[in-house]
């Protein structure tokens, strides 16, 4: 064919084909359209994993296409089954958290030998010695007559009102569980969903860092897919678009930064020291256990029971004390912890401020002081155990702060767990609030699915914000006030708080209300 004829035929073609003949760039399709997922969860901690499990356990949402991204290695089991060693990161799970975990089928996969339920709690003031004792008898609200009866100990009226039968579950205040145990149980549960029918597999990308989160590109024309309002997560595995992006990625959440949600609060200028301790006697599995917490002016110290003769320590104290504690030998560390429970605050501050570097100096300092400090003068509970040792390598510390995000939801975005709020560990509520968030968000998504909503729209997500923001704010506020009230070392604040604690100890209904709030009763 002659070239003029060819040219004429070419010019007769429609413009799009003519263009594609001349330029190669117009011919190539846009580089890999992002794969669309229903829910993308960034963060594979307890909150993220439990959220994904909860979604998969409901029939309305079990067919969801879900992706889970975490920068840590999730697949290798990090729990050792050694009865003699426990991780230093343990959490206290409230009964409502347990109910949620049982509901999604994760609790049965937790190694029961490594969890410890405790049935009572002793809290006392390090400065004035005033104390309060929580146990299952207080949990049941007995009303005004009960409160009057409690005020007259030893009376027949009081004896006639006491009910002694309690079910085993009701008797539990909370359950201690290692964080790694819980995480691996949740992971196991998520993997088990793969074998169930009608349940789509969860795409799990661990050891994957999120490179960036952006909104999608503008649509090319009216007919093509418009992802300009959808979050696109870029990782080494490519780009994925999320109908709902859930941020469960910890206190410095990239998802929260992408959403532009500010998070207000302050640093506590305290460090939390954790360790696994050995006690003087071994408890069997069916014995009643008690958790202890003493409020010192530098911060509260808590001893939480673990199976056998183990216990978990959480001690919030000044950064200088935390550094000193981490530098001590095991014998000195044990002596310092014993001192923190048994001696006066003056002695404790002296022991931790001394710059002596001789080993066992703390143990000597503690030994003669303990003999000189009668337990009744400091309010020490009668059955408080002696701490005989610390598991090597477990003392560690982390800075404490309080943060609360302004809102938990955005367009196609939700925050749960530490990404939404950070709280002081003195009430052991941090993980429980995160699990409650996961439960509430899952419930809201199921509701949205059942009512035909777009799960990423604010119409669906506002319900989650409305349910959880106020409750979390109240808990954060109470814990912050407790921390501030118990920071005073002397003066009218000490008198006031001792009086308040004494009153609450005697008023059953008030104590029951506090216990119920702490247990997350809904």
């Amino acid at each position, binding site marked *: 064919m002659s070239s003029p004829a060819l040219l004429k035929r070419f010019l007769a073609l429609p413009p799009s084909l003519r263009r594609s003949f001349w330029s190669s760039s117009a011919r190539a399709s846009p580089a890999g359209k992002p794969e669309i997922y229903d829910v993308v969860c960034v963060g594979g901690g307890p909150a993220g994993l439990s959220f994904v499990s909860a979604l998969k356990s409901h029939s309305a949402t079990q067919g969801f296409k879900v992706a889970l991204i975490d920068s840590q290695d999730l697949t290798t089991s990090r729990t050792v089954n050694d009865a003699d060693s426990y991780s230093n990161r343990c959490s206290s799970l409230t009964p409502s958290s347990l109910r949620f975990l049982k509901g999604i089928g994760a609790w049965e996969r937790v190694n029961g030998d490594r969890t410890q339920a405790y049935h009572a709690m002793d809290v006392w003031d390090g400065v004035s010695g005033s104390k309060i004792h929580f146990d299952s008898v207080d949990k049941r609200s007995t009303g005004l007559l009960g409160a009057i009866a409690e005020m007259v100990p030893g009376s027949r009226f009081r004896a006639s009102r006491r009910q002694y039968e309690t079910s085993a579950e009701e008797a539990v205040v909370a359950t201690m569980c290692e964080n790694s145990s819980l995480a691996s149980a949740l992971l196991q549960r998520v993997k088990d969903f793969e074998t169930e029918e009608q349940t789509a597999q969860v795409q799990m990308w661990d050891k994957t860092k999120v490179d960036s989160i952006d909104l999608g590109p503008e649509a090319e024309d009216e007919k093509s897919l418009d992802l300009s309002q959808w979050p696109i997560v870029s990782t080494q595995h490519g780009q994925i678009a999320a109908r709902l992006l859930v941020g469960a990625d910890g206190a410095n959440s990239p998802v929260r930064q992408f959403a532009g949600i500010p998070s207000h609060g302050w640093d506590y200028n305290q460090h939390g020291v954790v360790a696994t301790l050995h006690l003087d006697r071994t408890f069997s599995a069916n014995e009643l256990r008690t958790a202890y917490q003493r409020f010192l002016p530098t911060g509260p110290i808590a001893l939480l029971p673990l199976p056998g003769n183990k216990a978990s320590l959480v001690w919030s104290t000044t950064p200088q004390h935390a550094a000193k504690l981490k530098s001590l030998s095991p014998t000195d560390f044990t002596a310092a912890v014993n001192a923190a429970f048994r001696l006066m605050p003056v002695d404790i501050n002296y022991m931790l401020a001394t710059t002596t570097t001789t080993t066992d100096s703390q143990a000597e300092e503690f030994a003669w002081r303990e003999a000189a400090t009668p337990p009744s003068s400091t309010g020490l509970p009668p059955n408080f155990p002696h701490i005989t040792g610390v598991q090597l390598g477990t003392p560690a510390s982390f800075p404490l702060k309080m943060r*609360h995000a302004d*809102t938990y939801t955005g367009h196609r975005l939700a925050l749960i767990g530490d990404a939404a709020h950070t709280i002081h560990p003195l009430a052991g509520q941090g993980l429980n609030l995160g699990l409650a968030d996961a439960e509430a968000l899952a419930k809201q998504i199921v509701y949205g699915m059942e009512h035909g909503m777009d799960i990423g729209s604010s119409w669906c997500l506002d319900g989650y914000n409305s349910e959880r923001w106020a409750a979390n704010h109240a808990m954060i506020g109470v814990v912050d006030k407790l921390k501030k009230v118990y920071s005073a070392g002397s003066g009218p604040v000490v008198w006031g708080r001792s009086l308040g604690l004494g009153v609450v100890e005697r008023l059953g209904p008030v104590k029951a209300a506090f216990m119920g709030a702490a247990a997350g009763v809904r």
Partner: protein
Amino acid sequence: MASLTTLRNSLRAPVSLHPFLLQNSTPRALYHSYEHDLPPPYRNPEAAILSSALAHVPNHGFTTIALTLGARETGYLDISSNLFPKGAFELVKYHLVTQRLGLKNRLQFPDEGRLGVGRKVRSLILSRLQANVETGVVGRWQEALALMSLAENIPASLRELSALSDEIWFLAGDVSVDSSWYTKRASLAAVYAAAEVYQTTDTSTGFRDTEAFLDRRLEEVRTIGGAVGGTVEWAGFQAGAVVNLMRSKGLRI
């Protein structure tokens, strides 16, 4: 108004006489300059009389007798104490002014800056209190306090106290430019005044008790400062939280 009329009169005089007539109305800047020293606070005759009168204060107290003796010693007539219309209070003010201006010469800090601002403030206050002791005035200082509390003298005394507080913060290296500038100077003025009063009753060796008193007051300022700061921070947080709470419940604000 008087300066304007003198200015007008001096400008109506012959041009050659202008420098002579204007020398008393040299303009003084209202700011402090690092390049130019402030003119001395007292003119030479007054400064001479007051400094020699101060030497008599341990024996005669803050009275006009000390002023008269001081005038006599410097070679002026006894009646020269009329130069000081406020009498013995001028002697007190002279002591305060010279000690305040001399504070930078008494105590200097090395440039490394390892000392915190708090410790520098403490050292400066102690140095200023020590100056009271070294000039021998501390035994008679209660009279000075009484003079300073007279109604006609209160404004001048407060001005001197605030100037001293400002000087101490300046020498300690304070560079704040927000409202804490005012709160810091107010709290330091209160602490200094309390310590000075306490010093007049202190009988311990080397004024140890005054030092301990000062440490307790500074600790209180730190505690209250922390508490107030925390409360303000909390109030701001709560205000934002109320708005966020209402938004979470569906209110469009």
